[in-house]
């Protein structure tokens, strides 16, 4: 695993052992950042766990990269990964669905999934939780489609970051 000190944290995942140790690396690094208050750090870690594990469940064959950095009044989590065309298209549809829900309905959906999901792995609540915790849209953008089996894309989460306020704004774009 390569760790690059780019703003807050960058982790390249290239093997299963990288995924096994990601939590220690993220928490040690994130918790050492003194100028970001704990509630923000918790949200960063919660969202990072969901992004990484979403990738592990659906596609852990390829190298992926998580970058966390501050930009303007946001803390941004970028997760670059690859999958096949079908999974990518399903993910786009799911994210559209997640973004169309208001926060009250997201909470209801999360509770419904906890009560009713029968799948052994995953609850379907990962990206719903990311949207609820960040209070912003989940963004997805195709970066490169080399073949039907290799769609490289980025998921971006933005957490509004103000030192003394919880106000939020939403922009449904990457950039």
């Amino acid at each position, binding site marked *: 695993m390569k760790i690059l000190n780019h703003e807050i944290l960058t982790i390249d995942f290239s093997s299963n052992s990288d*995924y*096994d*140790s990601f*939590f*220690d690396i993220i928490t040690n690094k994130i918790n050492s950042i003194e100028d970001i*208050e*704990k*509630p923000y750090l*918790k*949200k960063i*870690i*919660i969202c990072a*766990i*969901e992004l990484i*594990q979403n990738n*592990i*469940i659906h596609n852990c064959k390829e190298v992926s990269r998580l970058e966390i950095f501050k930009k303007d009044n946001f803390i941004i989590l970028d997760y670059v990964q690859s999958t096949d065309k079908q999974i990518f298209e399903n993910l786009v549809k799911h994210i559209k669905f997640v973004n169309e829900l208001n926060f009250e309905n997201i*909470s209801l959906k*999360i*509770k419904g*999934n*906890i*009560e009713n*999901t029968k799948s*052994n*792995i*995953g*609850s379907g*609540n*990962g990206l*719903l*939780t990311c949207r609820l*915790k960040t209070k912003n849209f989940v963004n997805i953008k195709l970066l490169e489609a080399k073949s039907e089996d290799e769609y490289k894309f980025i998921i971006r989460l933005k957490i509004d970051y103000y030192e003394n306020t919880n106000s939020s704004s939403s922009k449904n774009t990457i950039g």
Partner: protein
Amino acid sequence: MKTQIPAQAKTPLVEKDLELNIIKIVGVLIPENPMLFFEELYSFTEEFLQKTKKLNLHVDLEYFNTSSARYLYDYLKKIIPISDLQLTWFYDSDDEDILESGKEFEELCKIKFEFVEK
């Protein structure tokens, strides 16, 4: 009889105290596939309940992932009918996420939790 399930990188320490009728779950709960952990936790709890039906369950989690939330709910739904359960949910004073999650579980499980600030 096992007295604990040791903590792993992605699963919490589980300890029991039969004198005080306590099972404590402490740490992080973030496995990709939580099934193995919860099978072990359920066996551990069943063994505990053979000694006493009174169970003080202390849940003190720093993080848990969405996959585990569903399994935690299933676990609680299974033990509620077979025990005299008192659930205490611990949280840090500045950890609104864990407190919020506890309130959601309380609503889902339809039993009263005790919330304790650490």
